[in-house]
């Protein structure tokens, strides 16, 4: 049976992951290892007067004063209006969010380290907290970084002739939208274990990261150690979602202490640290004006986007990626010509913004999709009809949109048509009317998006980032026993890359994936890759493995031709063997000849051997675009404000599906997170910037009972620009649920004249809106 591209191969990694045999940072124990706990700021904003170590235990506690030689984390950007921030791994002078690290304490156990942390005395003079990004934008606000003179990491402006439209457009729809601050909640939080390896002369850092090679660069740069003296190993990683794609201040502190004390030091983030100091994503505000004709055809859009970035600019992706992406991606899959957009990336007293699965698009998709439905209501038409008419038609592909995004291929309106059919839109409208007559409130919602994946060199360079991805490299080799080893500097933290990269190698070499091992995550033994983010793994690392495997297959053919006494072009690879007609040699024979019995090979043998490293990037640098339509049917209980999802369908086109089984898993997981965004998850702060949702009793994640049985449909429009026509897709399903579900909720609530425009759509918000709209409501109980 083939285990190549397109096969539903079971995930190689699941044997250990599902049997409790994985090895996470928390599972590793080194001789003499101690544990660390951090002293964290209890205030959102303040000036540090003192941090005092407990008497007699000074050598177990380290403060900013000890880490004097550590450079602050500073992510530069070449964008013109950008203000960089300096984030010391242990705060100096000021604290800027609740949970910011002030000191690191070490002890034989975590409990003892926490006892020690309690005894560190801190004195902080409170400063006015900056909690509301819209207010923080304005002059007169308290400042996080005084030397800037404002709270703006970045402002961008994309101009278009909106003023004419304002006078001429038949339909104008204006809305404000907001999305909540969220925590990504991977099952495994952050975790780092560092020690100094005297033999290698290296600081060895086991860390739970998506980007081991980047972390190596970061540790080297900010601790001032040569990169040759740093080895970063990402062991099994229990979920990343973007949370672990940036350099963590804790990674620097733990590494520094390990180096200083000569002792292996480990810190693992607990859930409370995560919910407080990791509350760092998704919070956007939109002010949109859409212009349309009488049928709802979009003519143009005017947007103001404010991103609540928090206190610092993360390295290497900066505080700007989110707003830059939001501004660029808001027009999404739609075909219209006039666009004006202003964005603000605002500093507030909250943890530093980090891109989360979908990066900016869950926000822009929510805002755009609600606007499409609002336009449809304004012109009195079925929203999905209006949606289809506004999407880029297949005939216009490839299409360059109003923000100069290059959509390579696909049929966007067809994805809506497929969703309408699968969810039975026509039948639903009849059911909905019947249910309303019984006092039940059903609603339907659609949401369509494009997902720019595997953004290339030029895209990142245009964002002005300090590190720009180029060629991703991979190594493929045949071992002496004829099995195959793949090495990639990318990492797998649940996406199944360990299996899909093996499938790509299998496609060329025809060896079964059970005989292909994939090694990732260790900078000491893998070729360079900037890592796993931006749905780039399958396209970039998959492409690199494909290229290396192709070259290797050519070498196998040449060796085999010699052994079979024929021409290389007459050799066919199948079932892990090289065939010439009926005659064949196995990979084990070819490997044995090269490694163990070179006497069987000719004198002019190809000396490069059975090991190939290749670099790859797609033919275009602008990314390849996956797209999808989500459709949801919900029932809203207007007495309790609860939303039940009755049906949920996803139609997705991500080019060649390397492993449909894994893709389905990615869709389920992403959509589950999107439902969290849509209905449950919200970090709340009081006026002092104190987080009110610091446990999972307050920060509500959806559980199995809150999730529908997702139904899926697929198209495969191959990208003309990537190896095998693959497009990235890991993030996709998390993008659309907010739009689909809230459109459905608003459809259900239309008899009440109620429209929800903020996430999450909690019972409190829904019921509150209904009660305000119908103060004397007398619905049946």
């Amino acid at each position, binding site marked *: 049976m083939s285990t190549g591209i397109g096969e539903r191969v079971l995930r190689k990694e699941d044997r250990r992951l599902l049997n409790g045999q994985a090895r996470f940072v928390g599972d590793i124990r080194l001789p003499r290892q101690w544990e660390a706990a951090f002293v964290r700021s209890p205030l959102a904003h303040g000036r540090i007067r003192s941090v005092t170590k407990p008497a007699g235990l000074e050598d177990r506690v380290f403060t900013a004063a000890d880490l004097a030689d550590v450079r602050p984390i500073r992510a530069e950007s070449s964008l013109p209006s950008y203000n960089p921030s300096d984030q010391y791994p242990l705060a100096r002078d000021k604290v800027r969010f609740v949970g910011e690290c002030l000191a690191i304490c070490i002890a034989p156990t975590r409990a003892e380290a926490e006892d020690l942390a309690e005894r560190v005395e801190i004195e902080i003079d409170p400063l006015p907290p900056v909690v509301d990004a819209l207010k923080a934008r304005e002059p007169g606000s308290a400042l996080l970084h005084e030397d800037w003179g404002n709270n703006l990491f970045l402002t961008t402006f994309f101009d278009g002739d909106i003023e004419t439209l304002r006078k001429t457009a038949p339909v104008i729809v204006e809305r404000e939208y907001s999305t909540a601050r969220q925590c990504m909640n991977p099952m495994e939080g952050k975790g780092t274990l560092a020690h100094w390896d005297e033999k290698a002369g290296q600081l060895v850092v086991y860390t739970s990261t998506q980007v081991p090679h980047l972390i190596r660069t970061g540790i080297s740069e900010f601790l001032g150690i040569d990169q040759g003296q740093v080895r970063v190993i990402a062991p099994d990683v229990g979920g990343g979602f973007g949370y672990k794609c940036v350099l963590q201040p804790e990674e620097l502190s733990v590494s520094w202490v390990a180096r200083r004390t000569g002792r292996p030091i480990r810190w693992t983030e*607990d859930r409370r640290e995560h919910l407080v100091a990791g509350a760092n994503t998704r919070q956007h505000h939109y002010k949109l004006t859409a212009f349309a004709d009488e049928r709802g055809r979009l003519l143009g859009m005017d947007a103001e986007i404010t991103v609540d970035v928090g206190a610092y600019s993360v390295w290497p992706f900066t505080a700007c990626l989110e707003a830059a992406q939001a501004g660029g991606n808001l027009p999404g899959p739609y075909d219209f010509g006039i666009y004006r957009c202003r964005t603000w990336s605002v500093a507030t007293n909250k943890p530093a913004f980090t891109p989360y699965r979908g990066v900016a698009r869950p926000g822009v998709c929510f805002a755009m999709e609600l606007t499409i439905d609002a336009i449809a209501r304004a012109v009195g038409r079925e929203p999905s009809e209006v949606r289809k008419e506004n999407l880029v038609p297949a005939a216009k592909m490839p299409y360059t949109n109003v923000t100069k995004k290059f959509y390579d291929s696909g049929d966007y309106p067809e994805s809506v048509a497929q969703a309408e059919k699968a969810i039975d839109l026509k039948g639903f409208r009849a059911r909905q009317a019947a249910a309303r007559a019984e006092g039940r409130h059903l609603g339907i919602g659609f949401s369509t998006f494009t997902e720019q994946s595997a953004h290339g060199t030029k895209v990142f360079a245009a964002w002005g980032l300090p590190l720009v991805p180029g060629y991703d490299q991979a190594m493929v080799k045949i071992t002496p026993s004829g099995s195959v080893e793949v090495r990639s500097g990318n990492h797998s933290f649940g996406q199944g890359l360990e299996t899909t990269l093996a499938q790509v190698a299998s496609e060329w070499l025809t060896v079964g994936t059970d005989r292909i091992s994939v090694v990732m995550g260790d900078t000491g033994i893998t070729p360079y890759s900037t890592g796993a983010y931006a749905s780039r793994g399958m396209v970039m690392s998959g492409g690199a493995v494909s290229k290396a495997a192709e070259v290797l297959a050519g070498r196998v053919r040449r060796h085999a031709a010699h052994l079979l006494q024929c021409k290389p072009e007459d050799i066919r690879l199948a079932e892990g063997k090289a065939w010439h007609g009926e005659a064949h040699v196995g990979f084990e024979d070819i490997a044995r000849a090269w490694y163990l019995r070179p006497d069987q090979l000719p004198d002019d043998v190809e000396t490069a051997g059975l090991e190939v490293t290749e670099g790859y990037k797609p033919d275009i640098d602008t990314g390849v675009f996956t797209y999808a339509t989500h459709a949801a049917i919900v029932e809203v209980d207007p*007495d309790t404000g*609860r939303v039940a999802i009755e049906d949920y369908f996803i139609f997705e086109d991500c080019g060649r599906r390397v492993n449909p089984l894994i893709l389905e898993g990615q869709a389920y997981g992403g959509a589950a997170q999107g439902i969290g965004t849509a209905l449950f998850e919200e970090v709340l702060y009081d006026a002092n910037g104190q987080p009110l949702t610091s446990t999972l009793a307050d920060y509500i994640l959806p559980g199995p009972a809150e999730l529908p049985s997702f139904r899926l449909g697929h198209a495969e429009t191959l990208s003309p620009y990537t190896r095998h026509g693959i497009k990235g897709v890991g993030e996709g399903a998390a993008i659309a649920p907010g739009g689909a579900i809230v459109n459905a909720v608003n459809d259900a609530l239309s008899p009440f004249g109620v429209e929800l425009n903020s996430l999450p759509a909690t019972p409190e918000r829904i019921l509150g809106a209904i009660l305000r709209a119908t103060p004397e409501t007398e619905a049946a109980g």
Partner: protein
Amino acid sequence: MKPAPFELHRPSDTALAARMTGGGDGTIKPVAGGQSLGPMLNLRLTRPAGLVDITALPGLTDLRETATHVEIGAAVTHARIEDGACPEPIAGMLRHVAGGIAYRAVRNRGTIGGSLCHADPAADWITALTALGASVVATGGTGTTREIPMTEFMLGAYRTALRPDEIATAIRIPRHSPGARWGYHKICRKVGEFADAIAAFVADPQTRVCRAVFGSTGGAPLVSPVLAAHAARTGTPADLAMVKAELGRSGLSLGAVKIHQLAVAHRRAVAEALSDG
């Protein structure tokens, strides 16, 4: 999230256990399933010098039945009740309430007594057992016991009538007649979550006992004889406006959404109890 150091005791004599908890100026606490206390210890919101594990005390995991009462040992877990191990004072209600608490892993350890003594306003047992007219049996350091009716047991959020040297040893629930009806409705964000609103309703036509209780009101459960009488008299729940007016008179400061949810929970609980299904 690790607790501050504490000493763990596991006595096998109830009066001794009560003396231990009474002797530490409030710094020594009982622990049962640890499902509420554990998180508070880990967050260092409470830092007792010692914990007295009461789950090994004689009789605390017993289930007894008399002609008039069902008696549940304080350390009986939600899971055992959910699984039907406990005699029902009224058909099926205890199983129903137990099965709606948290999720199975919590129910495997969490106890009915721990839930009452923790006195979280949003918890299920305090409201359900108030509606059933139950009482808490408390044992003091001298070995003497007293019975505290549920209506006097919870004084406010996280406050009970137990003295420091008293341990809740059992819950006594009067048996209801075979024709008795009950309804219990919990509104919460997701399955097994603490409630945003709870209403319980119990009506026993033979004994003419009828109780309507609201939970998750921010304090002790709210008992409404007015609404109970209305339902008993008319056989239908009061309309929302009437329920809201009654809640308004309670003096609790509740938001509009909360009041609405409580009123809806009440209507549903009553409708459930009085329906023929």
